[in-house]
């Protein structure tokens, strides 16, 4: 009996206490997040959700934003356009958020753009397609923290030009990411005096790329560019090794996942790809302006979750801190947050963001580092 009484009292006390907490701080800051936590793009949404939850915990344990607790409303878009639109609507109408972080994919972000614009709520997309924030005059309320595909392509071509490569064969996955990359590669190659002598594609479900590689081998290609984000891409380097092809292999930033390098084994050694610096933070020069933030994020993430840090979680990190910094300055007013974001310079995981009324992405091609694989790890490539 005594035990039971004690139990009831504890529960009541807990309820009262938590109620008191909520009412003592009526001005909690509500921020909405819409990520593809489940579904086919969950490898994007999962680290993003983990990251924002981790940061919100840190902030609230440290007393909130100037005393205001940060409340996150996280919705799962499942990587689906309709669900993304509904999620963003719910966040705006029901949860009354002052800013939205997400969505994870380019397609869902584009679907959510009109909703955020009409409701006049700032939205920071974690995807990378350039069209999300251009043309800027129609994207007043939309920002993004993912780097442009084209900047990755430019980085690859610049490296090639420096190494006298003028003929390349390209291999792209038949996903949205791969198809967009294929367009970018074709568009910018001629600017660098590089000609594409073979243009091959492969399915995400493909198990063997020998045929495509032989087609490339038949041409005079001096290098292969593999642009894809699906696990199947690690087969490309394996097949090249099997065919004893010795020309250099360039990968896209979609390769920036330690698991892909693990899967490709020693065949991935020496391949060249542009990626966010988070992937090679240990080999980054100590005086690099991003070094501190990257190291902190990596340590915090990897000690909280049993997982490797990824560039995608980094996007969520940047987006949430941008919003938190704006909240600190101007409070939970959507229009003021938007204006504040537009004038922000921020050193984040994805790079050094310099937003302006003409640029809602804030990153440029300098925010990619050229990396390579050495002993199964990503390292910064010495020029």
């Amino acid at each position, binding site marked *: 009996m005594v035990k039971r009484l004690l139990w009831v009292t504890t529960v009541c006390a807990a309820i009262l206490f938590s109620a008191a907490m909520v009412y003592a701080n009526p001005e909690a800051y509500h921020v909405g997040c819409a990520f593809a936590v489940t579904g086919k793009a969950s490898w994007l949404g999962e680290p993003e959700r983990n990251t924002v939850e981790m940061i919100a915990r840190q902030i609230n344990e440290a007393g909130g934003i100037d005393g205001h607790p940060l409340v996150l409303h996280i919705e799962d878009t499942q990587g689906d356009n309709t669900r993304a639109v509904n999620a963003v609507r719910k966040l705006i109408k029901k949860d009354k958020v002052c800013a939205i972080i997400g969505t994870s994919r380019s397609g869902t972000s584009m679907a959510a753009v009109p909703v955020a614009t009409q409701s006049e709520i700032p939205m920071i997309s974690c995807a990378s397609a350039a069209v999300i924030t251009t043309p800027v005059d129609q994207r007043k309320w939309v920002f993004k923290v993912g780097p442009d595909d084209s900047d990755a392509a430019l980085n690859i071509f610049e490296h090639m030009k420096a190494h006298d490569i003028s003929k390349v064969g390209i291999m792209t996955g*038949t996903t949205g990411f791969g198809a967009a990359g294929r367009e970018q590669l074709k568009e910018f190659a001629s600017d660098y005096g590089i000609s594409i002598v073979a243009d091959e*594609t492969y*399915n995400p479900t493909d*198990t063997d790329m020998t*045929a495509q590689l032989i087609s490339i081998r038949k041409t005079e290609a001096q290098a292969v560019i593999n642009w894809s984000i699906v*696990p199947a891409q690690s087969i490309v380097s394996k097949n090249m090794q*099997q*065919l004893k092809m010795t020309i250099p292999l360039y990968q896209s930033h979609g390769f920036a996942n330690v*698991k892909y390098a693990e*899967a490709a084994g020693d065949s991935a050694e020496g391949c060249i790809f542009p990626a966010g610096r988070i992937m090679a933070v240990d080999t980054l020069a100590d005086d690099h302006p991003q070094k501190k933030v990257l190291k902190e994020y990596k340590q915090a993430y990897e000690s909280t979750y049993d997982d490797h840090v990824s560039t995608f979680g980094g996007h969520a990190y940047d987006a949430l801190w941008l919003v938190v910094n704006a909240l600190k300055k101007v409070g939970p007013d959507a229009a003021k947050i938007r204006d504040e974001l537009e004038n922000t310079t921020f050193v984040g995981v994805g790079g050094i963001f310099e937003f302006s009324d003409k640029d809602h992405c804030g990153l440029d091609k300098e925010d990619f580092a050229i990396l390579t694989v050495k002993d199964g790890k990503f390292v910064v490539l010495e020029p």
Partner: protein
Amino acid sequence: MDSAFVDVLQFLIMGIQRGSIYAMVAMGFNMIYNATGIINFAQGEFVVLGGLMMVTLTMGFHLSIVFAFILSVLFVMVAGILMERLTINPVKQPSVLRLIIITIAVSIIIKGAAMCFWGKGSHYMRHFSGSTSLDFYGATILPQTLWVVGILCCVVAAYIVFFNYTMTGKCMRACAINRDAARLAGINDRKMVMLSFALSAGIGAIAGIIITPIIQMDYARGAMLGLKGFGAAVLGGLGNSMGAVVAGVLLGVLEALGAGYISSHYMDAIALIILLFVLFIRPSGIFGSAEAMRLKEF
């Protein structure tokens, strides 16, 4: 060596390697088709289970390849038996359509379970005997490809011996030809159905195990492998396992040549177009008998 010849040879090697897997999946389809008259849409999932189990046993528990191989096959065979006992056997009025829909449901369940257990990532394991490719008249061939082809030959040989020279195999064939007559002759047809699921799961598992070092395995691979294998089974004439082996290898080779000489963009389409043509011209498949086809329910 002439480079055009080397290319053809390389495409052939690649095609035979893919085709061997299609052939084994198709054999699995046929076994269950013969015993029950249905297409088991969970066939691709058996392949995935075999591959993933092998990854866990070799890379996680560091068992030897041979031991892990046997354990993985047994594991998937048990899964096949459970599937039959829990979902196919208890059905009161087993119409073909109903059973097929059940297999689709099972495939979704297995896929989900595999996702929960092994995660969404892609798993890889080391090759059976080194990953340095060997020279073969100018083309290159992975030792693993030799394993794939060799094990396909062993499976086919075992299949022939089992169905022609053992009593159980003969009983299964009897059930396939005429179930009622077989039952009258004292054959326990329900047990034969269970056995067919076990064997078909076993063949699927073998296919998954030998291909995993080359392609990596993830929980979602089953659908495509199943589809291609089904294509091979239809191409070879449903129910005709030797036809399925030839058709599977043929399909793989045509796919490889198509990808190499026509366009890699349409690789999957090529296989399906061939399948469509065969169905237009010879609906019973290349090696199937048109007469037998007419007598079957499905």
